[in-house]
């Protein structure tokens, strides 16, 4: 678990990339994001609350 100051998911990814170089590239494809338990396929567009929990996980499909 890592704490980051960011008000959007895009800002969070930029902050994470500063702390862990290569992070943004690593999640550029094939990754979905869960914000406070809800999974979103387009992480860059999502706003965050001050206490939001963000999880990165493999992109999901189905049958």
């Amino acid at each position, binding site marked *: 678990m890592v704490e980051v100051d960011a008000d959007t998911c895009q800002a969070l990814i930029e902050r994470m990339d500063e702390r862990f170089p290569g992070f943004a590239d690593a999640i550029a494809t094939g990754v979905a994001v869960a914000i406070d338990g809800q*999974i979103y*396929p387009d992480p860059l567009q999502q706003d965050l609350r001050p206490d939001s929990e963000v999880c990165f996980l493999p*992109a*999901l499909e*189905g049958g």
Partner: protein
Amino acid sequence: MGRYPAGSPGWRDKVTGQANYGADFSLPGMITGRVLRSPHAHARIVSIDTTEAGKLAGVRAVVTAADFPDLPSEVVAGGESPVNYRYISCNAIARDKVLYEGHAVAAVAAISAGVAEQALKLIRVEYEVLPHVIDVRDAMRDDAPLLHDNLYTEGVDPKPTKPSNIAKRTEFLLGDPAAGFAESEIILERSYTTQPVHQGYIEPHACVASVAADGMTTVWSSSQGQFMVREFCAKLLKIADSDIRVLPAEIGGGFGGKTTVYLEPLAIALSRKSGRPVKMVMSREEVFKASGPTSGGVLQVKLGARRDGTLVAAECELAYQAGAFPGSPAIPGCMTAFACYDIPNARTVGYDVVSNRPKCAAYRAPGAPMAAFAVESALDELALELGMDPVELRLKNAAKEGTRALYGPKMPVIGFVETLEAARAHAHYNTPLKANQGRGIASGFWFNIGGQSSAAVHINEDGTAEVVTGNPDIGGSRASMAIMAAEVLGIDYAKVKPLIGDTASVGYCFLTGGSRVTFATGKAVVEAANDVVQQLRARAAKIWKCEVDEVIWKDGVAHPAQGQTDTRTQLSLAEIAASAARTGGPISGKASLNVGGAGPGFGTHLCDVEVDPETGRVTVLRYTVIQDVGRAIHPGYVEGQMQGGAAQGIGWALNEEYVYDDQGRLQNSGFLDYRMPVASDLPMIDAVLVEVPNPAHPFGVRGVGEVPIVPPLAAVANAVARASGVRVNDLPISPPRLLAALMK
């Protein structure tokens, strides 16, 4: 939801034979394509000579891999998840090596099927036959025949220096499993195997492709996504998206198996070369030998619990067969294995393993049924060892809102507990059993997905409406789209006509799969219909010469807003539509979204079986599916999804498997020998709809199509174990296998 008929738009066409499936389409001048397939499980292609075939009278084109771009092996963004187009291309037509019996080697288009098949016999292919490997455990051995010289296992450190059939290792970890097992009072460890099984759609793959002189390409095909067909064909043949138009045919079943392309790129190449429209239709044998089943798996499960039934630790290691190219659902297998339960310490490790079988394809809840078979079977044994009721054991550990999932996030609003409580209270669970009969229970989970969807709602002059979306209807989604649009517009369902647009007539829609359409595309429909309502209010305001805010829309009629004191006449949708030309022109709404917030789905199944101790035959006596469906838009179709998933899962548990000879050749490539359950094999499957609305959808929708195939494997196995006293951990529990176990 408002009132609507039991059937779906298009049902009359289906039951009267009027519906146009992939094989029904014809064009003037159309010719027929056929595919030459490998007789070997694994061989190097030394040479292909098509000279004589090309000379045969009536042959218009012959293609091999040389007619397709040699794509790089790279993982790129595609659809909703990464894609390696080289794998798709090399699966559609072999390049350098054939990797399974049935792998396409060349294709011919001729004036008749007979001429095309004659031409196939004239193609000379020189093979260097290589050792093959079918079983996943054999494929993982260090000395196994290698399918790909450049495949190195991802996900291990340090990076391997030798190629392997293990394409990827993936691990998920929560808490400290070692500490959890150390504090456990009971530990149960078991191994399981499942077989690859085919989706078994009734309609074989079929398409027609026509390439015009200017290169404009049109494809009519049966698939789960016309945009997927466009995207894959464009990449495989290096054609601009705008130069391919794909029109969806009616689809005779998919279940995930039609989320990729096999024939379409071949038909395009043949049409491009011949200048004629080309139709291609697979035989059932080709469907079995050359289209993807889901993976078989080898799984180990370890559970640690306290004596009161509290789960403390859990581990699962699974190896899934990908077939000839990487891409098994090992990752979702790892993610779903323990998703039903609140376990503080858990680990799953998954391996994606290639072998000389057809490349696997998606199948309802990819990866989840195998993992659930292992975990839910182990839980049943744990319940027996603890002397606990199996429903109570699950209730004690059930995931709820806020439970941390092994794959990361906390669960949002879910209804798993409600399905268990409904199972416990159901008459089925409390009905006495007789000798040789047993009752099994198992639960299952699927994420459900959202993704990109578009919809348009057009209002006609007479007040009727069209709803256009881009998702083939494989489970009644047209009805759901019409119902939701009618609900928002406030008009009768019968006045709304749902249509499925082609790639040039509606905005992008990701394919029909992942239980996403009623949720995600439905959300686009709701937004498009809301757009229409806003326009209708504006038209009424224009007629009444007032502000839009002074008009409200209710039950399909514009009313003066509350607080207004005048007595203006109400305006119906039909009246506003009739005057549209004088108030601003046509009324149409649209929406294009990338939808998140798909509510996870959970189900619990009850299964009663009777075992014949003399033959090992298992008869399913009673089966009940209980599932949180969010909110059922069309309850009849929701029940159909639940029943269909259960039926397929029962077949997976009891009979279905691929039988190979020692040369790696499939021996049961037909429905006579590949034993899927038919109506006479099954009882009426009861469906209990639990409705815990998904707050992320305006009507509370959750996907429903995947979850019902997850629990049946274990539900049946648990029932058989309790009926016979013998537990079979290797599927299928076919009569010979069960009889052998009974006689031990």
